């Protein structure tokens, strides 16, 4: 979906290095979310945002931080990557009462 893009699509990084994933939307949606997908766990919420500079933790937020300085951008940062953060990361956007529109995902490998 052209309304939401994630970058990079793939990344390999070393343990202990910082990593930032970017989500960009052109839909002007208020809500933005970061999920991770792991086998046996489905999609788990990391952090979400309900407006510029308004963010909150999800169920698996340890080791992650987020920032939203503009409506269109939601950044996910791994301050010091660990192997347990190897996963596929999805960004999603929504408005109240609507379902989510997901990005295509970022496959992150921490070696």
């Amino acid at each position, binding site marked *: 979906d052209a309304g939401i893009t994630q970058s990079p699509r793939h990344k390999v990084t070393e343990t202990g290095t910082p990593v930032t994933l970017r989500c960009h939307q052109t839909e002007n949606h208020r809500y933005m979310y970061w999920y991770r997908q792991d086998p046996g766990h489905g999609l788990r919420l990391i952090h979400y945002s309900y407006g510029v500079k308004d963010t909150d933790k999800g169920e698996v937020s340890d080791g992650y931080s987020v920032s939203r300085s503009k409506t269109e951008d939601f950044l996910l940062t791994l301050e010091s990557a660990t192997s347990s953060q190897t996963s596929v990361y999805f960004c999603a956007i929504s408005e*109240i009462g609507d*379902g989510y*529109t*997901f990005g295509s*995902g970022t496959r992150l490998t921490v070696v």
Partner: protein
Amino acid sequence: DQQVKQNSPSLSVQEGRISILNCDYTNSMFDYFLWYKKYPAEGPTFLISISSIKDKNEDGRFTVFLNKSAKHLSLHIVPSQPGDSAVYFCAASARGSNSRLTFGEGTQLTVNP
């Protein structure tokens, strides 16, 4: 605490037959339920939804049934087609949660020609 659970990691059916995917939830505050479909290397895409005021919603080959007393919903696909092979996620939200969705683990559906 897994509030939305899909107990079957995988399901295999023959083309033309019915596929039934199941989902259970524990949070009685959930009042809106959705199914998402995911192909490899793509993000999940919305398939069908149902509000708690209904017990059935149909869209072409896809029907979602909701049993509130049992806290159970199911997705029926009939007839199943090979292109339906994907991972299906059940999701739920509660009014007042800012539409935040809780997802199940997913079920890999394989439709064999």
